[in-house]
């Protein structure tokens, strides 16, 4: 090289264009750059805020849509959202499957009657349904209960407190009918059944509506139908193994626990 590099480079720079308003152009560009950066920051902030809101919404929606925990399952299961009722206290039946109603309802409908919607009551070891005709007039109740009767229990005799009734048999079930039509204004059809040798008795009673008229006083189910319900295995199986109609249990025309000293109930 002929001479220092910096001197050689000076010749290269001949023909350099004028600067003009390049300084102002620098500041104008800096202002644009600043605006773009501000917009980018705002957009990023808005995007982040939107993302947080969306995630919050999704999380909240997911949590709110979660079904409540079920406390118990089965045909007599109680949904956790329903306040717990005291043992034996009447409570509206949940919209879950009701094994007893599945047997009772077709028989009721077969007689041009219906189970009054939302009339179903239930408690520990018992179920009760109000029945009405097509015009909405009450036709009494059907109530079903299960009792822990131990081994010494025998079928009661309505007219003879110390006697034991001789039951009829169907399948592995034994049963006795207790119909009372002496009061035309409130006739009662009842059957008590149990599995042979078992320690649980099932009582089914259909009672007419009191003081209506002769038609209203008739039960919603015939005696044969009450017997059919009482001897239907599905009804006994519809109750939980630990259910027992205790305090608050609806009254039956013929009490299952007739004489505790004899029947051991």
């Amino acid at each position, binding site marked *: 090289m002929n001479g220092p590099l910096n001197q050689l*480079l000076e*010749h290269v720079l001949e023909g*350099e264009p004028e600067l003009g308003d*390049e300084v102002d*152009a*620098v500041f104008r560009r*800096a202002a644009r750059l600043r605006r773009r950066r501000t917009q980018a920051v705002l957009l990023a902030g808005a995007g982040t805020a939107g993302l947080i809101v969306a995630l919050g919404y999704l999380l909240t929606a997911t949590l709110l849509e979660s079904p409540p925990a079920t406390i118990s399952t089965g045909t007599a299961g109680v949904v956790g959202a329903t306040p717990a009722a005291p043992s034996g206290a009447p409570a509206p039946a949940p919209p879950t499957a009701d094994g007893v109603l599945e047997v009772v309802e077709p028989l009721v409908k077969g007689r041009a009657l219906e189970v009054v919607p939302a009339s179903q009551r239930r408690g520990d070891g018992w179920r009760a349904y109000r029945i009405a005709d097509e015009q909405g007039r009450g036709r009494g109740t059907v109530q079903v209960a299960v009792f822990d009767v131990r081994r010494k229990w025998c079928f009661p005799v309505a007219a003879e407190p110390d006697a034991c009734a001789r039951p009829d048999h169907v399948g592995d079930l034994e049963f006795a009918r207790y119909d009372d039509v002496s009061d035309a204004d409130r006739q009662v059809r009842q059957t008590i059944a149990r599995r042979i040798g078992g320690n649980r008795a099932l009582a089914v009673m259909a009672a007419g509506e009191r003081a209506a008229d002769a038609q209203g006083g008739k039960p919603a189910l015939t005696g044969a139908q009450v017997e059919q319900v009482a001897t239907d295995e599905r009804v006994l199986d519809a109750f939980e193994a630990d259910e027992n109609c205790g305090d608050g249990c609806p009254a039956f025309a013929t009490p299952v626990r007739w004489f505790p000293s004899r029947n051991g109930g």
Partner: protein
Amino acid sequence: MSGDNDTSLREFVTSRLPQLRRSAFLMCGDWRMATELTRATLARLVADSRRGVVADPDVYAYADLMEACRRRNRRREHVFVASPGAAGIEAESILLLDALHKLTPRCRAVLVLRHWDGFDADATGAMLDLDEDQVVAYERAGLAALEKLLGESEAAMAG
């Protein structure tokens, strides 16, 4: 230089802009591109200085400019592009630019910063993210290569 002091910023830009543009031209061989790159570099410097994130404006400006030139140089097609309306330059200058642009970008940047802008090896290293020994090695290799290339070019022209 504080971020909110526009007067000092303007003074800095006014004083450094011509030299920065010449350095950019030596790096890219195109006055228009050099002007654009210098403007962009100084605009970033002004914006960042106002935010108070520039420690040393000279190091910031030259480091940013050299990096911009290095990226732009990949697309370069001509050794020299004259400014619009300007007369051409001498053949020797073309040869020097040609030899300069046959060097690697980092080697060329070291020669421009050390021999044109007059920075010492330490400041050059700070601008190019090199340590001092690397700067010296690049400079030595660049000068040797440049001398060889220029010698070959002169011999070819004489022949």
